[in-house]
């Protein structure tokens, strides 16, 4: 039996987490496939965490599964760590070793923005929002 949400508020938080994951996934697909900006190495790791989040959270919201935080939180935490590192790298706080020129974009190239905002920072805020929603939803459904 699925532990469903006792109140509508925590389900709404789960739904919000799902909406953020879906919007983020589609946005990076748009940037990569339609706008043609090739994802860098670190971007791929963040995608590997964000894409399953969109699907897992969609299923959980559909089934009103309150136990989803156990599955989704580790994914979101993994993505958050990569996004955090990428943001520091992009901001120049973590130095990047000089790599020879070749195919594939650099993880700290200046062109990595969407609407003037750096993509690593957008990614970090998405993962942060998802983690916050999941923790809040869990807190509310537990009490």
């Amino acid at each position: 039996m699925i532990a469903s949400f006792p109140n509508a508020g925590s389900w709404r938080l789960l739904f919000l987490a799902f909406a953020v994951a879906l919007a983020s996934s589609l946005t990076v697909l748009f940037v990569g496939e339609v706008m043609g900006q090739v994802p860098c190495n670190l971007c791929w790791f963040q995608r590997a965490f964000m894409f399953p989040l969109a699907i897992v959270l969609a299923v959980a919201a559909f089934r009103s599964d309150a136990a989803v935080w156990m599955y989704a939180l580790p994914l979101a935490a993994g993505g958050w760590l990569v996004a955090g590192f990428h943001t520091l790298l992009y901001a120049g706080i973590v130095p990047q070793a000089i790599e020879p020129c070749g195919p594939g974009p650099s993880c700290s190239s200046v062109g990595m923005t969407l609407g003037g905002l750096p993509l690593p920072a957008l990614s970090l805020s998405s993962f942060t929002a998802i983690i916050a929603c999941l923790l809040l939803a869990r807190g509310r459904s537990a009490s």
Partner: protein
Amino acid sequence: MNRRALVIATVAIAAALFAAAAVYYPRSTDGIPPDKSTLIRAHSPVIGPSGAPVTIVEFLDPSCEACRAFHPLVKKIMDDFPNETRLVIRYAPLHEGSDEAVRILEAARLQDKFLPVLEKLFQEQPQWAIHGAPDLEKAWRFAGEAGLDLAKAREAAKSPAIAALLAQDISDMKAIDLKGTPTFFVNGKPLPSFGPQQLYDLVAAEAVAQGAKALSQ
């Protein structure tokens, strides 16, 4: 409020928005053709009749698998349009060891062995061009098997002329913002999309267009 309906509707609306945005996104028309001078240099190897109306410029890397796979197709195009096309080779040494492979090719060109050595290096590529651990001694040996006088070639490969040619090709490769190898330009025009058929079609179209122009003059 029905939760399930809301989830399904959200997915459907997001997918529709994505599709609509993808369709209406203004795509840049595949880049402005780069300046002619960065595509063709006087020092570049030319295969085929020098006065041919259609010029295929190929940026290639002797260590690149896709260049190896493309080579027979490029040859077929040259065979199908023997009088209309010439092939200009530009080097894009993107892999470790590729610069030395280019030196082998250039030394072979001095001995009039460019094509046999290029084909031998492509054929034996899996033996010597291991990514991360290329074995250039093997590459030299294969070049020798293709008929290269190795003692002379090794000396010639160190010449400043070849170093200058490499430097120029690398600088042009950066100037056109090369994304990968092989990259083709047919009379300065980039391929509409990557693929052997696209190259064949563009060469055929250019051959027809240049033929018609020649007739009307």
